[in-house]
């Protein structure tokens, strides 16, 4: 038989990529989580807060050893200090958030009906600053990652529970995020879903691909390769570059919408940030 036909037949079995049409977010969520739970029957939903370590026992051991002296601890401490240091006008971050900003990471991302866009924790931190006469922070690393790490830390253990309101613009933001995630891009012509859905758990060179399910749960992360902390959007940009695509800016509408989609897909998984990764 023609070799090419063999390939075509073999791969059509793989054609299980869930959702591409205009299903409701609820249907998408069921299909998305169902795909992973079926593919990795021994990995319970909660475990997806641990990224690739949910799937690979060998690297999990090393990671658990690292977690005993977490490299992100300094960032949490720095974040707490920044969080409690008053702005020039005497107010602090606490004044901008529900519950004084403790345990509220789970409020983000959400669709802000008045502003007409997705609000993320990081964009809310910067808005708090500008509202109080301070300059915004850079979005990928540094102080914003520390503050975000502290706020993630106080949210640990709560379950992700993102709502997509019944509002056309919110639905559109969700759809844009979903589309971005499944769209091929770059000279290498790959979608996020190729690596983190279709081939999750496989090795790309020496790296094991993490499942997209749970991706936003443990950010920001300390990454050895970065030698420091980075936000979720820093990672999005890195993964775009990897396929030789032009990355978008951190907090661009594209990345906000994708964060909205991905976090909603992870509903039910515990918030577990900050994290440590290779």
């Amino acid at each position, binding site marked *: 038989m023609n070799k*090419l036909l063999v*390939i075509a037949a073999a791969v059509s079995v793989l054609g299980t990529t869930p959702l591409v049409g205009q299903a409701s977010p609820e249907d998408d969520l069921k299909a998305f989580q169902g795909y992973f739970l079926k593919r990795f029957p021994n990995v319970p939903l909660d475990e997806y807060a641990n990224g690739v370590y949910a799937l690979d026992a060998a690297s999990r051991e090393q990671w658990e050893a690292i977690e005993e002296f977490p490299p992100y601890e300094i960032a949490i401490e720095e974040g707490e200090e920044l969080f409690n240091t008053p702005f020039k006008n005497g107010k602090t971050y606490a004044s901008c958030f529900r519950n004084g900003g403790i345990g509220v990471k789970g409020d983000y991302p959400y669709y802000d009906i008045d502003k007409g866009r997705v609000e993320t924790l990081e964009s809310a931190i910067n808005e708090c600053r500008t509202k109080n006469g301070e300059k915004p922070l850079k979005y990928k690393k540094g102080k914003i990652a520390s503050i975000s790490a502290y706020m993630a830390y106080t949210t640990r253990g709560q379950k992700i529970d993102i709502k997509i309101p019944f509002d056309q613009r919110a639905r559109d933001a969700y759809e844009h995020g979903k589309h971005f995630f499944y769209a091929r891009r770059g*000279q290498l012509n790959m979608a996020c879903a190729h690596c983190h859905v279709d081939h999750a758990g496989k090795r*790309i*060179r020496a*790296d094991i691909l993490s499942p997209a399910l749970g991706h936003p749960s443990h950010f920001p992360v300390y990454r050895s390769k970065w030698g420091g902390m980075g936000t979720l959007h820093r990672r999005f940009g890195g993964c775009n*570059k990897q396929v*030789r695509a*032009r990355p978008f800016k951190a907090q661009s509408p594209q990345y906000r919408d994708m964060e909205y989609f991905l976090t909603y897909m992870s509903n039910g998984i515990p918030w577990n940030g900050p994290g440590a990764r290779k």
Partner: protein
Amino acid sequence: MRKSASTTLALAGAMSLVMGGLTAVTQPANAAEGASVIEQGKALAFDRKKGNCLACHEIKGGAMPGNIGPALKNMAESYPDKSELRTVIWDMTKFNPNSIMPPFGKYKVLTEDELDKVVEFIHTL
């Protein structure tokens, strides 16, 4: 001419280790002047900035292969017609629309000449 050559080059510099980054190019693809076509094809296939086939395929002689795609072996048997092998590498999405494998020829990841050399090498496996 490639439209976005300058962007592509700029980004190629920023790429990480996985799909071929700055750090780990062991062997420039056209290193050995006068190396046989097959050897040149092998160097191109293994070069992280060129074929980087090891990211996804086990290939004899290559360290730390990924396992996203099948091991590349018995190629002459599977592809008695070399041009068929070339077509697969030129654009796998022709055969599997959802393929993750980059369309090396169609998207000019490799030049036509580089592709020919890679085909020569892969056909020996």
